């Protein structure tokens, strides 16, 4: 009986030691993973500073020609920080990105429009520019301010406009022409209700969530979307890297994109 009890106890001790050993191993693995995670974060920060100070040569020359229209989505809470928004636009101007669409859901940036234009001396509103913004000479910035109402609500207004017009034209007993090709009419109607901007090539999202927060859906069919983190932690190096990656990556479009041709250069 004593031998049996002894064997039993020994078994329990061995299991307990084994379990403790596994737990220690698990904690050790977690330390390794956490340390690796922090090293990656530190690496990103250092890389960003190296890019900012021109240490990394490959980021020195950006082929901006491929980026004809850039959109920036900012979370409305962060959009109140007008000085940061202006700083971001100045960075973009310095690297040659001249056509920018600024979006925040609640229209905070629209309210700060005047302040932004006063601070950026060479910027014009897209409404003031008559020619196609993607082809104008790069002597000034063109800014477009967009909010949620320019997305789904605008499509509803545009659709309404088409229906009204269509009913007036075919007003024989109120018969609506279902055969009309609606998409080009919708495009035209969106221009009429004020949605003038082209489809952006690249959309940068500044916010905690990797989402475009209601940016006009009609305009982002083939737009590259990059999450940049919070506006509070924006860095020049990260901006340059995002633009550089866009210009260098081979875009595997399934068709010849209207606003920009696919790049044949590989990443």
């Amino acid at each position: 009986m004593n031998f049996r009890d002894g064997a039993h106890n020994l078994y329990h001790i061995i299991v307990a030691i084994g379990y403790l050993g596994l737990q220690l191993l698990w904690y050790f693995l977690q330390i390794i993973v956490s340390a690796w995670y922090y090293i990656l974060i530190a690496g990103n920060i250092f890389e960003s500073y190296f890019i900012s100070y021109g240490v990394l040569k490959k980021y020195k020359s950006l082929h901006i020609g491929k980026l004809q229209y850039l959109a920036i989505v900012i979370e409305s809470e962060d959009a109140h920080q007008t000085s940061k928004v202006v700083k971001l636009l100045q960075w973009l101007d310095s690297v040659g990105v001249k056509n920018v669409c600024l979006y925040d859901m609640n229209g905070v940036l629209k309210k700060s429009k005047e302040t932004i234009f006063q601070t950026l001396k060479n910027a014009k509103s897209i409404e003031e520019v008559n020619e196609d913004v993607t082809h104008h000479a790069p002597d000034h910035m063109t800014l477009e301010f967009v909010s949620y109402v320019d997305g789904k609500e605008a499509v509803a207004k545009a659709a309404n406009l088409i229906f009204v017009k269509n009913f007036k034209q075919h007003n024989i007993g109120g018969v609506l022409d279902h055969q009309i090709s609606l998409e080009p009419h919708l495009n035209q109607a969106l221009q009429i209700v004020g949605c003038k901007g082209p489809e952006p090539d690249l959309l940068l999202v500044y916010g905690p969530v990797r989402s475009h927060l209601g940016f006009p859906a009609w305009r982002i069919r083939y737009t590259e979307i990059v999450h940049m983190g919070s506006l509070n932690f924006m860095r020049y190096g990260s901006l340059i890297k995002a633009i550089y990656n866009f210009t260098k990556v081979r875009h595997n479009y399934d068709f010849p994109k209207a606003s920009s041709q696919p790049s044949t250069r590989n990443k």
Partner: protein
Amino acid sequence: MFSLRLPIPLEKTLITSLPKTSTTYSAYSGMTRFQVCHRYLSNSITKRGTSVVAFQDEVDGEIFVDAFQDEADGEIFVDEDFLEVDPLPVELQPELMPKHVAVIMDGNGRWAKMKGLPTSAGHVAGTQSFKWIVKLCYSWGIKVLTVFAFSMDNWIRPKVETEFLLNLFERSILSQVEECKRKGIQISVIGDTSKLPKSLKSMIANAEETTKENPKFQLILAVSYSGKYDVVQACKSVAKKVQDGLLHLEEINENIIEKELETNCTEFPYPDLLIRTSGELRVSNFLLWQLAYTEFFFNKKLWPDFGKDEFVEALSSFQNRQRRYGGRH
């Protein structure tokens, strides 16, 4: 940051090397096998092979594709019951699972090219990843999965490829309809079906009708779909309602249009999470209207290589995000 629980219970730390099914499959005579795939299964750890078996009939050069095949000890096994429930990984919280996941299954062609295989082999391998994702979503309490099976823009691809794709799609769904009905999986198809072959159209109608009762999970297949097309057809539906006197012009707003979108076939029309593979950072005209607050997860893996680990990573990323839906905390 540190978890006190071991990730895998002690008794389940051994990896078994036998596949789950053991039905022997006879190869076609006169066929050339390109590659052999391997799969090792255990109770809690799954490692997927990255090869695929495709057979080519040497007589007329036609590519035949069949179920994903495993090889162990010289015998070829066919995957049968893909809807066996998979336990939820410990790093995921069941209460934070997204209700609706959307997936852009990109990279089949590039995967095949990298392996030196024909494009069709990439699509076959892609169907296995698709089955995996359906199984995992079904097992883990996700209510709706929408996959971008075939885009309206894909019609410009070579006819041989589009016909192959649609044929593969038709055979894949046809073989699983009864299983889906048994398991309570509702199949819905969205997109412009006018260009699809008659057989496929009738198969879709049959699949939707067969699986519509008592669904526990909904699988939405976007075939010949584009986000713009969806909005346009919604506007046309609204116009029809106005003409029929069911609606007044003054009542038209975004909510009215939303109700006419093709995704109104589900209780949860707005995806919580969108996953796109192959490293492309675009939505490519997929669910444009519905993605306003969707969390994006872009993964560099090509679709045939996207498996459980990558899906868990996407879900973990989703669960760790703060989603404000445009408002404040």
